[in-house]
């Protein structure tokens, strides 16, 4: 089938304002949007710029807005979209070039929740693993799946209005550690969530959950974090 691919372009070295590129490509229904982008770059315009790596939805490089919603280009097939495909960069993040946005603030928010296991107690004397029951492990399973793609944060209207908001991805990471039975750093993970950048800014708008390519129950995780803070866990 013939696909009309419309891509929002931006290159400060060439023009101060964004413009649109329109390409017509012969595509199979099973092609990924990423395949089309790669072909457009290979065959039509070498200057088309986007991030990509794994090509099967696990590295989180190619988050972008496809037909109006945030998706991974490599996990979105032509057959889901039909013959008109519009690709734009994520919202709320500074566009560096074409589909590439500045992820640094996003990652700074991620780092602000101290996304690592905090437990300075002595390790088990036999040097073996810290014990954790299957139920305790299951408690935070969902939020371990995050690949830091940014789809969720860039879909959140609160984040659009205020880029200081840490965003759902960072809260998902806080959840990952807050509910790990081995973790002792609840206060440290949540310290960055208490002020105006933090978790209370979430208005449960739910766009994050709908855009997560890993199908993480983000709003639910955020609600659990809020509840943990309110109840002192």
């Amino acid at each position: 089938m013939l696909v009309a691919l419309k891509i929002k372009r931006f290159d400060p070295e060439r023009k101060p304002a964004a413009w649109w590129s329109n390409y017509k490509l012969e595509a199979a229904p099973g092609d990924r949007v990423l395949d089309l982008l790669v072909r457009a770059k290979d065959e039509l315009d070498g200057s088309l710029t986007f991030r990509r790596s794994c090509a099967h939805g696990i590295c989180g490089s190619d988050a972008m807005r496809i037909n109006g919603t945030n998706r991974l280009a490599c996990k979105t097939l032509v057959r889901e979209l039909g013959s008109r495909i519009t690709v734009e960069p994520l919202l709320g993040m500074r566009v560096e070039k074409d589909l590439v946005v500045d992820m640094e603030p996003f990652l700074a928010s991620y780092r602000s929740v101290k996304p690592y296991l905090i437990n300075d107690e002595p390790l088990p004397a036999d040097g073996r693993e810290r014990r954790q029951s299957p139920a305790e492990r299951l408690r935070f399973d969902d939020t371990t799946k995050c690949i830091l793609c940014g789809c969720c944060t860039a879909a959140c209207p609160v984040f659009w209005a205020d880029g200081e908001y840490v965003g759902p991805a960072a809260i998902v990471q806080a959840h990952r550690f807050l509910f790990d039975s081995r973790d002792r750093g609840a206060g440290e993970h949540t310290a960055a969530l208490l002020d105006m950048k933090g978790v209370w800014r979430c208005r449960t708008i739910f766009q994050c959950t709908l855009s997560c390519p890993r199908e993480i129950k983000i709003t639910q995780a955020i609600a659990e974090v809020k509840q943990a803070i309110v109840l002192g866990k």
Partner: protein
Amino acid sequence: MTQVHTFDAIIIGAGGAGLMAALHAERGTNVAVISKMYPTRSHTGTAQGGVAAPLGNMEEDRWEWYMYDTVKGGDYLVDQDAAEILARESVDAVLELEHWGLPFDRTEDGRIEQRRFGGHTRDFGKSPVMRSCKSADRTGHMILQTLYQNCIRRGIRFFDEFFVLDLILEDGIARGVAAVEIATGQTHLFLAKAVLLATGGFGRMFAVTSNAHSLSGDLVASVFRRGLPLEDMEFFQFHPTGIYKMGILLSEAARGEGGIMINGLGERFMERYAPTLLDLAPRDIISRSIDQEIRAGRGVDGKDYVYLDIRPETINRCQSAPGGKTVTAAQLEAKLPDIIEMMRVYQGIDPMKAPVPIQPTAHYAMGGIPTDCDGRVLGGSLSPVPGLFAAGECACVSVHGANRLGTNSLVDLLVFGRRSGRAMAEFCAGASPADPVAHAAEEALAELARLQRSRGPERVGALRAAMQHCMTDKVGLNRTAGGMEEALSILRDLKERYRHLGLADAGQKWNTEVLEAYELGCLLDLAEATTASALHRTESRGAHFREDFPKRDDANWLHHTLAFRAGSSGAGPVSEGIRFDRRPVSITTFQPEARVY
């Protein structure tokens, strides 16, 4: 103006190997990690199955058994001193990850849960053993995340989205690397006492591969171009069950749960090739069988794929589920959630209702930069290159020999990443501070500038596609002298055409086109090294199968291949031919035997 940075140690690559090394080198060493992608985008994150360690949490297990499996799995081309280290230290490495927070699956009593995996046995091959530690089918993701999290905790310095072009070697001593900051196009020199290469695989030289777009072996090519040898490049693993055309991996677990493969005639063709183990035969054997079916015109609709069938009714009819049990769709969905999702997303097929088209997919480079057991890179005379280290898939220790076992790559990253990190720190402690280097990396920077200005008729995409198809067709599963000679001449022709590339992007910022061109140059060199090494080895062993020499030949070939680029160094691909040397295999415990399963 090129910016200059000085560190004690620099690590190129933020995958499992690089991050593990960073965490172990860090104490007392001023270290920086440079990566062309954000660390969490590294390909380690895609690993599914698990990481082996004889923890014995489920049943008795011993490191000796594990070592034996690794040696036999590698068709006896494994260095047994290294395999012993791998088997012994895997336990510590896995427990260390647990202590750092890795969310392993758990047993009822709270220990790390383990499962069976292809080729891992108890008591030297008697029966399967549960050795693979895992976190559902997201083990690699968890490893990568956990390591990066701990790097954040320790405040390790990262240079993300810096593309390293070339190694700086002066008088045979590693002095640093040259890199481009992708966002700005600014060039940087990183000078250091010690340099660790951990840049992962280079499967993108093939048309159908499970490897990421970014796996182009840039630094492996750089080492090669600097006149250093590459080891065992002919051994490239093809995983039997890749999604048709896309190459996306469908883990062995699908067959472990009873899935079978059928050809275009509806036959369960593995009955022909491996009557006992059938669909659970080793990867190299199955991949080759699929290829033979396709060549015989028995692919589905005469095309180049066969079916993987995990429909419950098929499994039950063939009684192929473990223990001859019957299974239901719900059970399969619970056991293989991610794989089933991938089939649904990428093929639009419900695997509970229809079989799924599959095709072998280029998966893992057993060969690479030769190192000793502490990650020290070995030069031409097999003596270490001062200051140069390598670990992970880009290195060849060699613990995988001619064929890697499932789960063993992750162990390799952890164990040898750790050891090389420590060795680097030790080296730095004894070395004098990095001095400024004269004329550093001029060649690489000039090559990049040349590419950026090139306005010839050739397209990066077209050349890349030609190389990939040439490699898959002629240097894939079945190799012949004729085919490989043809491949060499195609590759040399492509290298010639590479001199006449034309690029559209003249900008400095985020110019991925010029970087892709540079990557292509690297892949062309590695493709040639792979092809020439494969042509050189006139036997069949593990993943390397030659129709014209179908038998293993221990008398002549029980040694590693070392390939050198003949002639001068340089930063672009050139056609100057390749010369060979050999490295003996370390055999300490297990004498080579016929490899039967």
